[in-house]
């Protein structure tokens, strides 16, 4: 069973969630829980680093959309770092490249 590891760090006051593994229907609740906890604690401007993600499905995408909606309600945002071409393609196919701010690297994501 492939796992999803989530490490949280703060860079210049912005929480960065480093994901590695698979964001699928089994692992997504873990991501949802982590995002909700941060947003409800007042840290609603999140950066999700998907550099270590090698698989995401529609449940994972839906979880990120749910996080974005929750963050937006609190005046925040979710920026995504996604250098992996295959993962980026899933965002493109589903039209979510227009919903999320997606960056190739951390420097660009944090500079916005």
């Amino acid at each position, binding site marked *: 069973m492939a796992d999803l590891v989530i490490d949280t760090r703060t860079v210049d006051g912005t929480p960065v969630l480093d994901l590695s593994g698979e964001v*699928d229907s*089994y692992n997504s609740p873990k991501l949802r829980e982590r995002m909700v906890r941060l947003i409800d604690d007042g840290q609603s401007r999140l950066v999700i680093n998907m550099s270590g993600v090698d*698989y995401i499905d*529609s449940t994972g995408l*839906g979880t990120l959309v749910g996080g974005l909606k929750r963050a937006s309600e609190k005046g925040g945002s979710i920026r995504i770092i996604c250098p992996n071409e295959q993962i980026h*393609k*899933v965002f493109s196919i589903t039209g979510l490249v227009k*919903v999320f701010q997606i960056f190739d690297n951390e420097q660009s994501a944090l500079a916005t």
Partner: protein
Amino acid sequence: MGINDGVMSDCAVRDPDSGHESVRDTDLVQVRIPGHAAYIGIARQAVDAVGEQMGLSAEDRSAVKLAVGEACNNAVQYGRPGDPDTKGADLCAAAKSRMVFVACRLRSDALEIDVLNRGNGFHPVPGVYSMPKPEALAEHGRGLPLMEIIMDSVEYSNVDGSTLVRMRKQVTPPLAEPCLGENAVTC
């Protein structure tokens, strides 16, 4: 029609020159997983291994893995109504209550994948059906449209009270062997 259609009794063919066994059209690889999200990754990995052996490109393998994952998600989520809640911790109960069958049929021009679950499933329209696309900020409903976009064909049918999703990914013709050696003139 059943999940075992297409099974051949002697799948492997021995190459008289190399002595190696090779697959031939309609070889079948099957995986059966408990109807719980925890096991879907196993089905994905199994199908990916088949795709790798067939020589699918990295892009096609990613597409196949995603499509199988989505079909299994639906099979698990919409499996036989009335079964125990498979989101609970009791994986054994889940395993006994629902199973998901995944079969990869290796054809000369395509990888054909069946995902079948017991029960009425999600009641797709039989045949080829285009699912409505979700709203931009919807949290659900992207799975089936994704499958239909990334695979070359997706068909839905009901088989003896079970739901069958059959998907195909065409095999791109293999590239010619590269020329090696400074004296090579023609390939």
